[in-house]
């Protein structure tokens, strides 16, 4: 399955001033950093926005700057947000408030936040994006899925450009939700704590990017999903994961779960010297859940711009927590023929 489009801008917000190239470095596990959205965004209109929305606003602002795009360019732009946990705290806190008294104690400003599309709609309003507005809440594969669906929108001609965001916040509800059960603890390779952050890519139709003289980081390639009950079951794991010639970087969350760790090891062994470099973004930044695929894509872009002309990366997320496995190939832009893209 193939979406389409090229990446013309990347941006992340994790607090602590972390920049996209730093996603590529190893290092010790980091705790969710200091995040001060008011400094980056100004205070206007932000008072009732939840944490995931604020993180996303910062990441999108950075990516748009990186892509040399302003609001004037964005009226036909689509927005696709991947987040499972963005508003779970708002929902749970509202119920706690109601049960402690009545609905009278709720803030009347809380209404948008109890609908999970609040992040995407805030982004659409902030930058005047009148194209399709989509929130993908698809578990561990959600970030990779969002990139594929953004590519579909570009390819079918629903939007010439898509702002793709992956975001998960960290709060008292997410901490409880992500804590591994007794059984899950036996399946862990390493107990990586929850992380938080927002990552953003600007996807454009290749011709649109070329027309405005934008230099793409990468092209979106083939998407593949493998379904439960056993998404790793295949005799030719390497081919199944499209780790064919030219894949030099494989982003996989192999530090946390034994099943993924074992699969990664098996693939490396079978490919020998042809095995790609393996990078687990979560090993340093914590479990990113629905945001992972988009963070992986940002990391892949930071890597691809410095790689050889025929370089390719594969993003992989899921395969655990009852989710299937999703994979997306990203190639250095300019290394293949332009696909037939309807505008």
């Amino acid at each position, binding site marked *: 399955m193939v979406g389409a489009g090229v990446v013309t801008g990347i941006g992340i917000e994790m607090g602590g001033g972390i920049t996209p190239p730093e996603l590529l470095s190893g290092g010790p596990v980091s705790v969710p950093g200091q995040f001060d959205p008011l400094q980056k965004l100004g205070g206007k209109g932000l008072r009732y926005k939840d944490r995931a929305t604020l993180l996303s606003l910062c990441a999108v602002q950075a990516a748009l700057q990186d892509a040399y795009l302003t609001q004037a360019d964005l009226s036909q732009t689509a927005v696709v947000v991947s987040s499972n946990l963005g508003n779970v705290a708002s929902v749970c806190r509202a*119920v706690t408030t109601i049960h402690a008294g009545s*609905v009278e104690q709720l803030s009347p400003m809380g209404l948008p936040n109890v609908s999970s599309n609040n992040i995407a*709609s805030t982004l*659409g309003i902030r930058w005047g994006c009148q194209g399709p507005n989509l929130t993908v809440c698809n578990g561990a594969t959600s970030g990779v899925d969002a990139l594929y669906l953004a590519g579909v929108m570009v390819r079918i001609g629903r939007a010439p450009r898509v702002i793709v965001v992956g975001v998960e916040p960290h709060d008292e509800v997410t901490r409880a939700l992500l804590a591994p059960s007794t059984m899950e603890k036996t399946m862990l390779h390493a107990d990586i704590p929850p992380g938080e952050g927002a990552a953003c890519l600007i996807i454009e139709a290749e011709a649109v990017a070329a027309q405005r003289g934008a230099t793409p980081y990468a092209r979106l390639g083939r998407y593949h999903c493998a379904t439960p009950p056993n998404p790793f079951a295949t005799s030719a794991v390497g081919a199944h994961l499209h780790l064919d010639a030219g894949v030099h970087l494989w982003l996989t969350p192999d530090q946390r779960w034994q099943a993924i760790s074992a699969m990664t090891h098996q693939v490396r062994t079978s490919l020998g010297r042809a095995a790609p470099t393996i990078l687990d973004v979560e090993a340093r930044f914590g479990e990113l859940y629905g945001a992972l695929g988009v963070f992986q894509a940002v990391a892949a872009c930071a890597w691809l711009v410095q790689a050889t002309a025929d370089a390719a990366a594969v993003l992989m997320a899921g395969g655990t927590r009852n989710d299937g496995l999703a994979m997306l190939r990203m190639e250095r832009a300019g290394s293949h023929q332009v696909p037939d893209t309807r505008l």
Partner: protein
Amino acid sequence: MTVVITAADMTSSVGVGRHANFEAFCRGDRGRKPLQRFDAARFRLQYAYEIARSDSGVPDTPGRATQWLCQSIQRVLDEAQLSLQGTRVALLIGTGLRELRSLELWWSTGTPFHVSELHFGGAVQTQLHMPGPIFTFSNACAASSVALGLGADLITLGEVDAVIVAGCDTITESMYGSLDRVTLDPLEEVRPFDARRKGVLMGEGAAAVILESAEHAAARGVPSLGVLRGVGITCDAHHETAPHLEGIVRTMQEAQARAAVTPAMIDVVLVHGTGTALNDAVEARALHAHFKAEAARLLVTGVKGMTGHTSGAAGLMGVVTALEMMRQGRVPPIADDLDPIPEAVGLGLVVGQTRQAELTIAQINAFGFGGINAVVIVERGTSW
């Protein structure tokens, strides 16, 4: 490429199944009842359109949206005689509130819940063994119509041979309470397009359809219920909760352009019609602004007076209803009696009795929080 619908199903507070719901709409059955699952003493609003519970004695049962979803998907698989093995198939689920109700029960009463249960893929896999991708979209009140548009896109692009599109929602305490908090005058029922309307009440349910290319359906020898002519999807980019006239008109234009139809070719419109002051006035004005002289010829109806506002499932429920309207040549009334809003004067609202009419093309509107708009155009199937 022509995308056809080869099965359609829905569940609501007035019935299970496409036929049962349509007959209920024609009779004017309403699913409104006093709050069943919430502690009514904590709310000013006292009514909702819940699916009647059979499990008294427990605070509430988790996973109800998931259950209705799986049952609806099974029914459409049966109707379309679609085997999942050997078919390139995807499942797209549009929901407003996913399993946030189950999250609420976990947080407030300790009812067991796993983070993966917020979306529907795991449960569908366990029950139905889907071999292809399953996507859950949480896209407010337009969710299932948006899913329908993207599903059609996947078929048009040749990514898959068949798409199951579904929608499902239960009522959450947080959304019901938040709507209650901003409701000026506690209301007791939903009255779409009525001057006496006082706002929206929530409902729940599910819907599902199967999409295939016309060639694929013909090769399988299955009849089509209708043709999915096009889906317009836009965002107002204007306000978090209030609708925007220009955005709605633009969506209708886009839908009709994708469907290659003109306003003169639309026979009936199934409105979003939530019964709020803003939605109904803006939607009626948008219909006039877009259809102009053709507005007088339109038949107009809506089902939220019967089902309540079923959040993300609403759009697809409307599509399923529209298919049955065209199949039977009958339009159910929007209400038993109506004092029409001034903005709706000149629109052919169907009131009181079911209207018999030959219907070829229907439009279904869905407008969600955050300004997410989706308008669906469907054409009557010919193979009856």
